[in-house]
């Protein structure tokens, strides 16, 4: 079940489209925010409110990389390793996160504080290497800079 605030938000979103099915991607985002990840309850809530079969919701959600099929840490690190970032050392940063913080791609740190996802290009190639932490962009990354950034996310 969604909270009443989310239900209101979703009604507003639905009004932007001629079909309620078009609100599916936004609804999955809301479910992910509310349940933390796409748990069975989250799928149930989306299917109920949009009157779409649960299997359809799951089929759509699993197609997209940004929908989380597993619980994630409190903060989501999305680090790009595509070519522009790779040639400027992004893969060393992946090793750094593993060796200094015990965070591996696709995993959660043991204290539940961070999750790491390796990204394809995130549109910050001119200031590579780059990452997103939650909704914030960080660019021109170095090991030292990453350590400073991560300190801010408790």
């Amino acid at each position, binding site marked *: 079940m969604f909270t009443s605030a989310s239900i209101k938000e979703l009604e507003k979103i639905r009004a*932007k489209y*001629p*079909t309620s*099915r*078009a*609100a*599916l*991607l*936004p609804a*999955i*985002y809301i479910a992910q925010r509310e349940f933390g990840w796409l748990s069975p309850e989250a799928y149930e809530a989306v299917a109920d409110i949009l009157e*779409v079969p649960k299997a359809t919701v799951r*089929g*759509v959600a699993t*197609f*997209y*990389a*940004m*929908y989380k099929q597993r619980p994630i840490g409190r903060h989501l690190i*999305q680090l790009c*390793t*595509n*070519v*522009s970032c*790779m*040639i*400027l050392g992004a893969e060393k940063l992946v090793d750094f996160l593993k060796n200094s913080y015990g965070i591996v791609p696709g995993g959660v740190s043991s204290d539940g504080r961070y999750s790491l996802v390796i*990204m*394809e*290009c*995130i*549109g*910050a*190639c*001119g*200031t*590579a290497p780059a990452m*997103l932490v939650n*909704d*914030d*962009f960080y660019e021109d990354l170095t090991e030292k800079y990453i350590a400073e950034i991560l300190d801010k996310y408790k």
Partner: protein
Amino acid sequence: MESLLLKNIDNPASAEIGEYRKTGGYQSLAKAVEMEPKQIVDEVKKAGLRGRGGAGFPVAMKWTFASADPKFPKYLLCNADEGEPGTFKDRPILEKNPHLLIEGMAISGHALKAEYGYIYLRGEYPAAKHILEKAIQQAYEENMLGSNILGKGIKFHLAVHQGAGAYICGEETALIESLEGDKGQPRIKPPFPVNVGVFSRPTVVNNVETLSNLPCIIGMGGEAYSKIGTPDCPGPKIFCISGHVEKPGVYELPMGTKLRDIIYTHCGGIKGGKKLKAVIPGGISTPVLPPDKIDCPMDFVNMPKHGSMLGSGAVIVMDDSVCMVRVCHRALRFFEHESCGKCTPCREGTGWLRAILGRIEEGEGMEGDIDMLLAVAANMLGKTFCPLGDGAASVVQNFIRYFRPEFEEHIKARKCTVNG
């Protein structure tokens, strides 16, 4: 050249409607609402505007097809999926100059008699979502969007639709599927979106940068606009340069600026005075070029004559410390990950290419692997449902075309011969 598209982006308040209006913002829309839709299309035709999303399709032609379809309502979709690796040209417009895009969409909506528009924004740009939503709200408040734009009875409603991390949703029919609430898998063409697009209605899909040219075209007139750039590809172009140059970043330059000048004049040359090894000129899907092939004018017509493509204008510069096998392998990891799985040659082919490149990189390549790569690529080319699969195959072919000895050395030495 004076910036037209990236004007004001150094002003920290550039996303505010008041700031935008101070430098002439929304005056082109005021002019456009006094024009007949057909007149606007004619100006775009005179301007010679081509789509900036990658393919360079003439905009007026696409618009004429959509206008000729009798079905209503019509839709205008802005492609803000910007997923092609190396590309970061639309982001400054979205984050710093959102009203330029909104004004461009309102003008285009009028030209097409489209009543509804959506900006399909990639999920990886959360800041842009908030900026755009706020800018759209401001535009509604000042009657630049809505049911009675500038009191002229013109209707155009606009909303942001957020993607969720799938490169293929940049392909226009996949984008439509995704907007309708489905997996982003391409549709068969025909019917084309201009006839049967989103919600089965006539739909025009244009890139962010394309639509952002409309205020300039209406403002200065198509004729004057067509004098910028090259005769076949007029206008300004936003180039985004990354990798080993002294000054990477976005540069608004006339279409047809030479690749060499972009690298050596505008971007200050190769970082640390090192030697240039390779350039990917238009995003990772476009053919790589060796250093002796960079005297090409960067536009949609000239680049194919020089063995590559303009693509999104995303220039990736690599110095001689970069291993070509490694770059090619990384590119194929991308294509395998982003293949939507709809057709077999791409779904299976990208996996095979990635696997063979992976073993060459790791020192486990076998004799005959290079020919095997070429055979797999040849079996994909022209046989995939959408251009993603073709792109993956041609990336491999072109890396081998120019850097074959490096692949051979990796196999023979059983290790990376560039970085030891």
